[in-house]
């Protein structure tokens, strides 16, 4: 793996207006190298999606900065996005709203190809990308409603990857999918991103899937990264009490009928008091 850093996020703070303002992300820093898959896990409301949107430049963070390929990430505004920034692509949670219902899916994948070509990269055809994500290339002329949720997500992945991104931000890309296709889609993403030599920020609350595909894992709680490190190590030997509670709460399919211990309110209160653990 090359150690070229594609994404460097420093001290991100995201606030949402309100009185008092809601601090969704409270000082998060991390880097992603080319070819690396970094997972961001945490419960709903922990600020994972806010990190994703800030990193992809959809929303402007209140504080901190995001550098991508040595340049700053300018948030989307009234201008067209700078060409170099089309190398950040995103896959969203809900496949049913990820594709324009009135356009043929092949045309939408072609948008991704056009973005790659605009950066001076070699062109490709939508059919190739369909093949790569495991769909029949002859389906390019269909409309989104003719596909199931899992297939739509594959098309959205094809569109994102056709832009030949250096960084793919995937915000809960599998949680809306059928249980049977979740791990296959996740593995597909990991493989294709690695093939392109891109980095991936993979956000999920599904720890089982994260364990299988991520090189490094960041565990978020209440807007802060509580623990980060090599995925295998983090699973084998979690240090932070929150990580431990999170891992212990997953019911094991061992047939023993053991119900995982539920964290108490005191536990929850204590998690924020223990300082973050990084390696």
């Amino acid at each position, binding site marked *: 793996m090359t150690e070229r850093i594609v994404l460097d996020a420093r001290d991100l703070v995201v606030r949402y207006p309100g009185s008092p303002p809601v601090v969704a992300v409270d000082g998060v820093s991390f880097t992603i190298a080319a070819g690396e898959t970094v997972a961001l896990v945490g419960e709903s409301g922990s600020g994972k999606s806010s990190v994703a949107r800030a990193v*992809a*430049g*959809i929303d402007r963070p209140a504080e901190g900065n995001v550098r991508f390929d040595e340049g700053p990430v300018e948030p*989307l505004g*009234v*201008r*067209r*996005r700078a*060409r170099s*920034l*089309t190398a*950040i*692509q*995103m896959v*969203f949670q*809900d496949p*049913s*709203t*990820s*594709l*324009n*219902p*009135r*356009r043929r899916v092949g045309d*939408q994948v072609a*948008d*991704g190809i*056009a*973005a790659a070509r*605009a950066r001076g990269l070699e062109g490709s055809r939508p059919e190739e990308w369909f093949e790569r994500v*495991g*769909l*029949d290339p002859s*389906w390019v002329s*269909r409309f989104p*409603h*003719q*596909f*199931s*949720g*899992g*297939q739509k997500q594959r098309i*959205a992945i094809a*569109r*994102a990857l056709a*832009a030949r991104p250096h960084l793919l931000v995937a915000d809960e890309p599998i949680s809306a999918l*059928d249980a*049977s296709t979740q791990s296959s889609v996740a593995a597909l993403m990991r493989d294709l991103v690695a093939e392109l030599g891109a980095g991936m920020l993979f956000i999920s609350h599904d720890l089982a899937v994260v364990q299988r595909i991520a090189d490094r894992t960041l565990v978020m709680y209440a807007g802060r990264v509580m623990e980060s490190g090599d995925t295998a190590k983090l699973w084998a030997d979690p240090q932070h009490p929150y990580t431990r509670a999170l891992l212990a709460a997953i019911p094991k399919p061992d047939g023993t009928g053991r119900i995982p211990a539920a964290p108490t309110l005191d536990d929850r209160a204590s998690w924020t008091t223990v300082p973050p653990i990084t390696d």
Partner: protein
Amino acid sequence: MSAERGTGNRTDVLAAGWRTRLRWPRAWRSPLGILGAVIAVAWVLVAFTASWWVPFEPNAQVLPRLQEPGVDTLLGTDGTGRDIFSRLMTGATVTIPLALMLVVAAMVIGTVVGAVAGYFGRWIDETLMRITDLVMAFPTVILAMVVAASLGPSLFNAVIAAIVVSWPQYARVTRSLVLGLRGQNYVIAGRLLGRSPLKSLTVDILPNIVGPMLVLATLDIGAAILLLSGLSFLGLGAQPPTAEWGSMISSAIQNFDAWWLGVFPGLAILTVVAAFNFLGDALRDILDPTAEVARENQADRTSSATGAAA
């Protein structure tokens, strides 16, 4: 892999099935919609062909005055000996095309304003929507009267007046639709691929609001006809001797005993307004986005069921 392919094929077949089996029957199940469509089409045909087949010149005063409806003159004659039937049909050639034009113009203006406001948000939105509110705050007919009065009474000025008062509702609806779509993943994905805001609007957003806008426009045609006739009735639109429904009713007041003078233009307005409203309602049922979502979910579920089966 094979399962996924199989699923896709079946989804396709299923989707086609839903189309043919569900869409049409649902439309046919609304008899009012069919009735509305038939009447509306008939009136539009009349509007574009009447001048060739009406029995009398609409302004020719060649018949006995105030003749009751009968065999020679189907709907009677008016106080100056003009054939009501011919004038009624000719009235359609005036009112209906103008109403259509009015609605299209109001829709275009309103859609552009609403889409820009909704898409760009912030101060652009604030400014545009406050202007819209300002126009909306006036009672429609009064504002139209002000415009028509200041430009001088003529049918063309009445149309301008009607456009001025009609566009804000389109702007409002468009804005809320665009606001809803702006945050959709595919719109954001398009922007991330380097699409400019204008392209994003025309490619990703506007095609997806055409359905509801058409429904609104169809429902609005009735209102537009009422407004135009109303202005003519008040003397601010069509001027005598132009055959126009509103002014026909207006002049009918002078001969109050001759019921046929006012009743037939009134019926004409009633049927055409009702027809377009029925048509709009039926269109709304057919194009209902929630129904579409429900159908899609259904297709999703059945397709995953087939997927498992395969």
